[in-house]
């Protein structure tokens, strides 16, 4: 009975509820930089992530539990361990890395086929726009075959984690979508 009451309570109030957001992408795309850009608003020096980073941030009265998973080939198979209860996925792409665009596309579509992620929203960051020779957002969208996605709210945003451009815009969109779906 106590459980029931408390469950009702938290559904009503949404207090302390955390939204799980995953940041995925190939190695060196800038996931960790984006995470700490969100957390502390600064660019930090990063090392390749072996495993994961997780940070809790408050954003527009919401508690976000943001997971940044390592993107190395050896760690990618373990992404699936983190899919459960995920509200949204942020997929980060290195816009300058044209050679590996098809690998990124493959990983993205493979991930989205997972049942646990059927209801989660997708935000793609076409990152590293500050670098010369970066593909534009629409070009990246084409490379990733994003048009094929059905039954899913998705968006692609051009960003530069170093300069801090596009990150908040992308997150704003994501939060709006998630709020509608989850609350």
């Amino acid at each position, binding site marked *: 009975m106590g*459980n029931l*009451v*408390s*469950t009702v*309570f*938290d559904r009503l*109030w949404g*207090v*302390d*509820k*955390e*939204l*799980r957001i995953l940041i995925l992408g190939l190695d060196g795309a800038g996931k960790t930089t984006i995470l700490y850009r969100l957390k502390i608003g600064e660019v930090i020096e990063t090392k390749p*992530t*072996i*495993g*994961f*980073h*997780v940070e809790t941030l408050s954003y527009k009265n919401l508690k976000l*539990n943001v*997971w940044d998973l*390592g993107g190395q080939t*050896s*760690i990618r198979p*373990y992404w699936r*361990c*983190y899919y*459960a*209860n995920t509200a949204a996925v942020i997929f980060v792409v290195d816009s300058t890395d044209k050679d590996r665009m098809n690998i990124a596309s493959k990983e993205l579509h493979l991930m989205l086929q997972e049942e646990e992620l059927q209801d989660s929203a997708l935000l793609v960051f076409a990152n590293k726009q500050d670098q010369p020779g970066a593909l534009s957002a629409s070009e990246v969208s084409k490379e990733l075959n994003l048009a094929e996605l059905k039954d899913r709210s998705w968006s692609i945003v051009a960003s530069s984690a170093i300069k801090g451009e596009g990150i908040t815009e992308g997150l704003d969109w994501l939060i709006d979508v998630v709020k509608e779906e989850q609350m």
Partner: protein
Amino acid sequence: MGVDKKIKKFLRDAIRVAPKISDKGEVFELRNGLVSPYPQTRKDAIRKIIQQMTSGKDVSSLFPDVLKNIATQDIEQKKLVYLYVANYAETHPELCILVVNTFVSDAADPNPLIRSMAIRTMSMIRVDKIMEYIETPLRKTLADDNPYVRRTAVLCVAKLFQLNPELCHELGVLNDLQSALSDENPMVVANALAALHEINELDPGCIDVKKLVSENVRRFLNVLNECTEWARITILESLSEHKSVDPMESREIVDRVVPHLQHVNPSVVLISVKCILMHLSNLNTVPESLYNKLSTALVSLMSTPVEIQYVALRNIRIILDAFPDLLKKELRIFYVKFNDPLYVKIEKLDILIRLLPADNMKQCQMLFNELKEYAKDFDHEFVTKAIQSISQLAIKVSNGGEDTHDKFLNTVMEEFISIIQDREEFRDISMICIGDLLRYDSDSNLIDNASRAQLVAIISSWQDIETVFTSDLGSCNYIWFITNYTSESLETKLQPLVEIFEDLGTLTQMALLMGAVKCHNSVSGSFLENILQLCTTDVHDLDIRDMAMMYWRCLSIENGDQVINQLFDRHEIPKLHSTLDHFSPEMLKSLLQELSTLSSVYFKPISQLQHRSNDVHIIKNKNLDELKGMATNEILKNQNDDVLLDMGNDSGTRSTGVLDELNDLFDITGDMGKVNISQNKNNNNNTSSSHATDLLDLM
């Protein structure tokens, strides 16, 4: 504002959703709890999981989900997850890589508890992949500002060494470990020392710990007072193994260690005693007060719980063998209390007899009265030990050599006469003790004839001998007694034993043989022949068989009688001086060095306690290799002999052919084998080719 916070807090408490058991199974529920969006629910789930883990249930299937909760600000939750990871890492080695990042960042956490927790858990996980990433956190924590973290890191080096010695050498952390010995914090010093000892045990050639210890003796002495009990034990252990350079250093060590004799922890006391004893021989003069302090320390151990008392008693027994005068004034403390457990009682009796000053008649009499009381106890084993102690006491006192002491032996004999009369169940041990006393008295005749006669009368009257004695030694002593002190109807007394000859113990068989031969004049020829026959045909023991053969020979030659009488002349048999057993000098030396360890409780030096299965394995391999080598050499030698027999020209080629075959057979990879074979080839060449080429070969 305050109200707002209170409401919030109330709500937070209210929405704790404990994972409940549903139809889908507990593990499913727990998994759901772990990925819940509510932090408190996740924490409760982790608690539940740890609870199940500690009660022995296998919850390893939740590994990936538990891992996700490792990155948290909540130190309690972190600790729980670390506990889980340490326990189940080996079941999911591939997933462990996911925690590396957290380990590394936790090792740089502002909280020292988290830093040390991270490095401790990281070095505990026996997964190769984790080891690759240990360098940065280990270095960082080894040079940490906080002594607690440094202390943990230092121990981690030893753990790492156990898992991967090559990596340790590669990272050079062993040098860090050695420099940690001069750390300002006593805990770090002690732990570094413990780590070095551990590494030394794994790979003795790796670090010269002895040299390091001798360089740091002064440091150790300085930090000793500020250490915890464990650290003190480590340091004192090293100090006791240290060979001091001059008496001055020994003096200093002893002076600094003496205060620790009063420590509350019995282990610290015992190791301090050991440390002082080890350095005692180096001192120029040993003040009497030092012995008193050692005695007091050992006596203080007698007021601990009985289990610890037992350990202390076993150690005291060893110490007394080397320093018999140490506890002389403390006899009373070892008197048996009625509520002592049996194992303590028996050890105490052992020590009482050893401690007793033989020249103090009053104390001897007191102890004798005490032992007589013990002998009336209900516990069979204790009474047996008490009776044995009485005889040991009598012999020890009589060795004092004065008149009063001689009378004592007779008093004891009377006691024994009453014991064998009244207490049938202790005939075994009484018989053995009477035998001992009579053998002790073999040439001095202290025991008066009246009691001898009484003994003979009582013992000769015993019926059904085959059922009276339960032990080999008991019946052996009985036979010795009646063949030495009676001459009437020997045959009838021994016949029942002869009938069950094959079932008798070796000692009894031997006693029967010797008794019958000794009294060959008073027994019938057929009886004697029967025993000799039995001893030469039905006995497996070689000694008995040889002895029987020899006696038979002696009896069948001319003057056989005389030879036999000479052999059994009572005055030729050496006198029994003491029935107290002592350790051999080498044994005593190694046991003293291993005081307060398990080996001192078992009375077995560490070298005799094979505890590492690894070693056994390695030894086995070595044996196999040695055997292989020996077999090869043997065959080669035979081969050589063959070659030497036919010196024809074709011998060289033939033998090399066979050698090649041998090579294939044993697949020799060791250098030894190769050398042997090439030498043999040279030898063969000797026979067929000229000396000049031979010399060239040798060059």
